């Protein structure tokens, strides 16, 4: 569900058409259906969410306006902070590793130096087609020390590899699943951007005596900065939304993964186990604001370098 929102469209907006199109209302005729549904499933829920976060549901008297009290309460809640710091650690470690691998593979395939590069591209992309549910189930089985691959390894070599589903390692185990799911997707984004670079630039650089590293640093990386920024922002949004993988692994690792493991799981359990819709909406709004601020900062930084 994550990694699909183009938060940085501005970065990669298409060039304006050479000839000025006619300014009229005609465009609205084509855009109206999208905007109507968009208003229903994006704008209305956001507005409703903000409304909910400002009220408290009382047994007597129904909804009462409480201003920012829900926000104060959430921000003072250690459960919220531990969930938030967990995804922050996840973000700081998993995203650079994943994007680093993706970039390496994209550059390797684009360089034309691989044997059988088409097989690489399509195979490494394949996990993207696998639902998070299946990915988490597969890896969950493989992680098993009893009958999974870890168990096989321990048996075969007489060692005891630590249990990936123990509290100390479970965040890394989840990071591995998310990395597996999205390395190929990000690789493809980078690769598509690399293909757009005019090949003649490389010829010119080679004539000037530039090596492969120099070409990567001076031509390829600057040229795909937009794609790098977009992929980073997708990944940040994805990390803050972390839900599917830990929620599914929960049945395998109930001791390591609590129902408040990530902010998203906290919001889910508040509303669907606790009926605390106001608190849930507040968590969601706070996470939305944090995500937007960080995504915006990344975008600004990415653009500043371009100048």
């Amino acid at each position: 569900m994550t990694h699909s929102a183009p938060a940085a469209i501005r970065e990669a907006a298409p060039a304006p058409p050479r000839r000025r199109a006619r300014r009229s209302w005609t465009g609205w005729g084509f855009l109206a259906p999208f905007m109507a549904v968009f208003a229903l499933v994006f704008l209305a829920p956001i507005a409703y969410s903000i409304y909910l976060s400002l009220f408290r549901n009382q047994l007597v008297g129904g909804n009462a306006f409480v201003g920012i009290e829900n926000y104060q309460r959430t921000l003072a809640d250690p459960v919220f902070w531990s969930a938030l710091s967990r995804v922050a650690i996840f973000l700081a470690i998993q995203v650079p590793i994943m994007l680093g691998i993706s970039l390496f593979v994209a550059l390797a395939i684009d360089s034309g130096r691989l044997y059988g590069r088409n097989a690489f591209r399509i195979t490494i992309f394949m996990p993207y087609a696998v639902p998070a549910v299946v990915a988490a189930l597969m890896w969950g089985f493989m992680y098993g020390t009893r009958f999974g691959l870890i168990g096989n390894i321990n048996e075969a070599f007489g060692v005891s590899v630590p249990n990936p589903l123990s509290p100390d390692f479970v965040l890394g185990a989840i990071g591995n699943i998310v990395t597996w799911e999205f390395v190929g997707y990000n690789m493809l984004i980078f690769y598509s951007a690399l293909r757009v670079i005019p090949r003649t630039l490389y010829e010119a650089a080679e004539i000037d005596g530039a090596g492969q590293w120099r070409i990567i640093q001076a031509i390829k990386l600057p040229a795909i900065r937009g794609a790098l920024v977009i992929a980073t922002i997708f990944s940040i949004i994805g990390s803050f939304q972390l839900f599917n993988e830990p929620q599914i692994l929960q049945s395998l690792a109930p001791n390591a993964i609590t129902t408040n493991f990530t902010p998203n799981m906290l919001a889910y359990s508040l509303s669907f186990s606790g009926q605390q819709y106001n608190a849930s909406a507040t968590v969601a709004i706070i996470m939305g604001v944090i995500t937007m601020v960080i995504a915006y900062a990344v975008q600004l930084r990415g653009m500043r370098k371009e100048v």
Partner: protein
Amino acid sequence: MATALRPARPTAGTPRRTGRGYSVDRPRRSPLLTVLTGIVLIYSLVPLVWLFVNSTKTQESLFNSFGLWFSGEFALWDNIATTLTYDGGVFVRWLGNTLLYVVVGAGGATLLAILGGYALAKFTFPGKRAVFAVVIGAVAVPGTALAVPTFLMFSQMGITNTPWSVIIPSLISPFGLYLMWTFAAEAIPTELMEAARVDGASEWRTFWQISLPLLAPGIVTVLLFTMVATWNNYFLPLIMLRDPDWYPLTLGLNAWNAQAATAGGEAIFHLVITASLLTILPLIAAFLLLQRYWQSGLAAGSVKE
């Protein structure tokens, strides 16, 4: 695997060879780089191999055999038959539900994205900048911020626990809108549209007869990505649906897996694994069969600056 695959963009105009026999287009192959990238390939492949290997095992040999090799009797066909008939054929029902959500949801999302992307790419109209800002701002809001209030809204409208509660939110794909928009800007020459108008074609006819055919690679790309999003969706149906009769495959799989953990529940790991395999095969097949189209669509329409 795919000899038909060509680079998404032709590299016309560059000389094919230099005096040494190698050039930017035909560089020397590197075994070392191939091996390093091969590690990532193996990493991507191992879980899928594991899934296939283990879907051929009985539940018994699942527990006491090496995970990455075949063992015991070859039980794949038995497993598939049991998966399809277990619990009154509920898997087939879930498959049907998923197909419904994908056809209506992803199909509708693609249609809305085509129309909207076309409008953004080819027309200037009052409020265009505002639309842009609103769409961008909204997609940065995380899923939970939307899921809970959407559930409450739908609950008041009385459509939770119905297919509509899954289909309606699936109709919006900001990523699809963006892809279509950048693709349409590239693929449709404005001169062609103006020529059609001069000839007296209505806007709708111009769109239908001139623009739509040019958008085909972009449409395939958007359709595939919205299909994946809908087929793989878990969070939204988890919130919206209570009745297992309306579950998509993802929710059903998780229910089967959780069954082992509930008191008195039957452990059916071999069915979970076989059902997982059956769940991913259609999407992998679609990506493989249509790769030439969606890869060119992605390259032409996506992250261009």
